[in-house]
């Protein structure tokens, strides 16, 4: 069977591959595309490693390292490619940042961040077990327990 491109290749921009199936909308919610970005969103593509995966292509915008890492909590195995003139010029994986500000809600209902108009701050405790400590209530959570703001 012939391979068929299901989404258009992009000339310049960013491709995020290996997003866990079903999470593409959450990834986009974090990346907050601008009104000028052309975004292609693919869901439930077959994948050898993941069985099913989601993909995002953003034409005309190269994501910064910080932007890329901000999706690490929900798409830990994502592969990010920067495309220039149809060619991949840079490939990277995502890493949970040492410090995550204003991105996720503290799961502890008794945490002050859930009561006051303030920004949450989490500090990475252990990158292998993906544990983060709330700067305020000091509780430690795994990335899977977190919800994005």
């Amino acid at each position, binding site marked *: 069977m012939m391979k068929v491109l299901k989404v258009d290749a992009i000339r310049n921009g960013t491709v995020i591959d290996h997003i866990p199936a079903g999470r593409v909308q959450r990834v986009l919610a974090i990346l907050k595309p601008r009104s000028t970005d052309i975004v292609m969103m693919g869901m439930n593509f077959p994948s050898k490693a993941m069985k099913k995966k989601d993909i995002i292509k953003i034409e005309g915008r190269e994501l910064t390292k910080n932007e890329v890492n901000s999706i690490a909590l929900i798409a830990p195995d994502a592969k990010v490619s920067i495309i220039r003139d149809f060619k991949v010029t840079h490939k990277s994986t995502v890493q949970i940042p040492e410090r995550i500000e204003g991105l996720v809600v503290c799961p*502890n209902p*008794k*945490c*002050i*961040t*859930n*009561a*006051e*108009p*303030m920004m949450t701050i989490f500090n990475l405790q252990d990158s292998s077990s993906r544990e983060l400590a*709330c*700067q*305020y*209530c*000091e*509780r*430690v959570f795994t990335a899977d327990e977190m919800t994005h703001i």
Partner: protein
Amino acid sequence: MKHLISMRDLSADKTLQLLKLAKSLEKNPSQIDLSRRVMAAVFYEASTRTRMSFESAMKRLGGEVIAMVGTSGTSVEKGETLADTARVMARYSDIIVMRHPMEGAARYVSEQVDVPVVNAGDGANQHPTQSLLDLYTILKSQGTLEGLKLALVGDLKYGRTVHSLAYALAPFKPEFHFVSPKSLAMPSHILSDLRKMDIPFKETTKLDKIVNTTDIMYVTRIQRERFPDREEYEKVKNAYIITADLLKNAKDNMKVMHPLPRVNEITTDVDTTKYAYYFDQAENGVYMRQAILATLLGEAK
């Protein structure tokens, strides 16, 4: 040290400095003069004991105290944010001592104001001045913090005091017995931290077996409000009652500690034994809080 928010921020060196200063202030309180300094006690929930201990500490060093106790009738009730309340209190005072039911409240306030902030309890999270006064009490009664055998007794699941104490003592090679009903055992994340630090501990439901080998018996109250189920509370509430009879073969140096208030977990016949140390512990709180206030106000020599 700008603020005192969490025992996690405190190095062993700083802890020892505070212990030393508390001891020196107990002997000679007139070495520090906090006159014309104002402490704001900002208590979002009532805690008579902790607040009065701080007030006593401040006043005995010549300082003044202003207080907000509970939020009824205050700007908080009108919808003022915590940050705004704190900013105003900071303009009225030289140091803020704060108790708040939400965890992390003191840390947040410390980021909003220029004056030092002391955490006097933030929900179930931290109560560092209690941990420090406990350390001071243990040091004073045993002459050392090193290599002691401690029995922590009662509600070890919800008891913030015993959690902090376990961490605060960790650098001094303690040996722990955790004595509690199974439903109120020490949380597993704390046990796993202790294992990582190579701190030996045993868990047991029986108190009588370990009484005669222990140096410090730290008793906590089993609180009714922790139990959604009244029946469950009734089952465990009288599990560990300390009586003079229970202590008859205890070591000479053994001391019974309790953060107070006690209800019935230590019978009054213990009060007159040489083992009773909980009222000394309360008094030690004043010396330790003097040391903390003096240090944060830049007056410690």
